[in-house]
């Protein structure tokens, strides 16, 4: 039995219980044309999810000896990637597309200690080309940022 294999099913069971609680709070509509209400489908999914997760947990427990030292295997690069994506999303909101994309690309290249000048040129060209294509060809107004906009 690998302890890490129990993590997601347990989280899903907790979430499903929360869903069951929340569905009980749904407002009742004035007219109910069908014999099943708005909460029927989410309830059915949550109950099925609990059953599936319990089956996964039981299946894992039946495998025997506990191997608790098994991590999910995130390394520092993936953790950097996760923080990088979240920070980029926040930066776009604050500073808009142009500044945050160029800045994020440079931070990324610095993180990987890239010394290739062409990579930095690519960052500049990519940011500008995407901006030009979206605004002038597709007429999509890219975010300008709450601070800089």
């Amino acid at each position, binding site marked *: 039995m690998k302890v890490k294999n129990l993590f997601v099913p347990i989280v899903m069971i907790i979430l499903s219980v929360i869903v069951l609680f929340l569905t009980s709070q749904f*407002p009742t509509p004035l007219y109910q*044309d069908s014999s099943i209400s708005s909460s029927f489908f989410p309830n059915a999914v949550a109950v099925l*999810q609990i059953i599936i997760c319990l089956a996964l947990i039981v299946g894992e427990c039946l495998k025997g000896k506990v191997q608790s030292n098994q991590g999910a295997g995130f390394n520092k690069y*993936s953790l950097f*990637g996760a923080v990088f994506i979240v920070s980029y*999303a926040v930066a776009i909101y604050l500073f808009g597309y142009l500044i945050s994309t160029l800045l994020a690309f440079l931070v990324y290249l610095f993180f990987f200690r890239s010394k290739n000048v062409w990579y930095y040129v690519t960052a500049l060209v990519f940011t500008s080309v995407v901006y030009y294509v*979206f605004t002038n060809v597709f007429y999509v107004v890219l975010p300008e940022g709450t601070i800089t906009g």
Partner: protein
Amino acid sequence: MIEHLLNGLLTALSFDVFPVLLFGVVGGIILGAMPGLTATMGVAILLPFTFGMDSTPALVMLIGVYIGGIYGGSIAAILLNTPGTPASAASVLDGYTLTKNGQAARALSISAVSSFAGGMISTVLLIAFAPILASFALRFNAPEYFALALFGLTIISSISGNNILKGLMAGMIGLLVSTIGLDPINSVPRFTFDILDLHSGISIIPVLIGLFALSEALSQLEDIVSDKKHTLRRFSLKILSRKDLKEITPTAVKSGVLGTVIGSIPGAGADISSFVCYNEAKRASKTPEEFGKGSIKGLSAAEAGNNGVTGGALVPLLTLGVPGDAVTAVLLGALVIQGLSPGPLLFTYSPDLVYGIFSSMLVANIVMLLVGLIGIRFFCKIIEIPRILMIPIIMFLSIIGAYAINNSMFDIGVAVFFGLLGFTLIKFKIPLSPILIGMILGPMAETNLRKSLMLYESSWSFLYDRPIVLFFLVLTAFSVYTAIRLGRKNSLN
């Protein structure tokens, strides 16, 4: 039909459409050729570029990416022993052996010709059978659509890999996410927490961008340090001979037909098809011992088999509105963005578009063959593009793409959330496609179940007194039974 097809061909070759088709095919080949970048990811990344386009060039470009992406995956498989996409895993067996023997150009040209044969056969069969199936589907009402959605949900069990329960768990996540927003019948707010953006539900495009592009980019980031520059062997630039062509033709045709049939079964994608076709070619061969040791028939079968899926997979999407796999689920998103609802009525209301797609597929396959043969020397260079540059580009395009759908910062948040969720689930070996299938088919199942109950005044008798419903329920039961049997067999192995 012939008139629509000819009009479609003229459209595909027009100045407005042909350049985007060419861009799509070449872009698909380039993306597919890079190890780790799949055809699904390619279509998801390029989807935002179609927002400002008309529906025909937009869909034509994405279909070009799809066809090019499946072929492109074989380039890395043949040259580097690293399949660019899961669909090309079977091509490694003989393709890389040919490269090791100094026959890379021969292998790549066999791959291009076989992919072309598979793709063309598949498209012709799609053109022949899709309208028939669509006219049959016009008889569908709410109960039939509910039963169809239920059957569609069994795809989850077949795309779940070795662990069906994990796939089902992911499918339930998708179904639950699909219930966020106003309830489709009574407009009761569900899980909206008074957040206005949640009232219209979770948009499918940011979810798929997060699940298939961002999470993959994060996974690729982990391998970036071990990314050694591949050194290619010197090889002869001699492409396939007339004798080779004669030898592979029967295998390619047979695999193309088999691939189309497999592709039209919801849940069975190009990866399954290429292995099934490879095994079938080996079984039927007089020299099965040559397979795996550089057999051109083996390579041809795998290649025609995976490209044969391209037309087949569009059958359930265009005729029934049910995506058969992850790529067609993304294409469904593209149709919805263009304000079109895939299904039988698409053939009635937008025949020009449907036949435009069909004709473009024929042209896209020809373009793929020409680009594939002419660009052999160039493709050897593509696979050397450093991943360190590709990953941030994928991330930025994904996030901008998620924003551009509705000019919404909320959608960026959704894409980032699902990117992180997808990456975490990959770590726990939980498949991601079922989430998307659940999100697409959930509303279809719920809405039509509730409509059916209203139609039958709260009686569930529609489940047994309508022949088409019964047919789909039997298919659903059979599909679940087969998946459980296969799952048991896999776990025993």
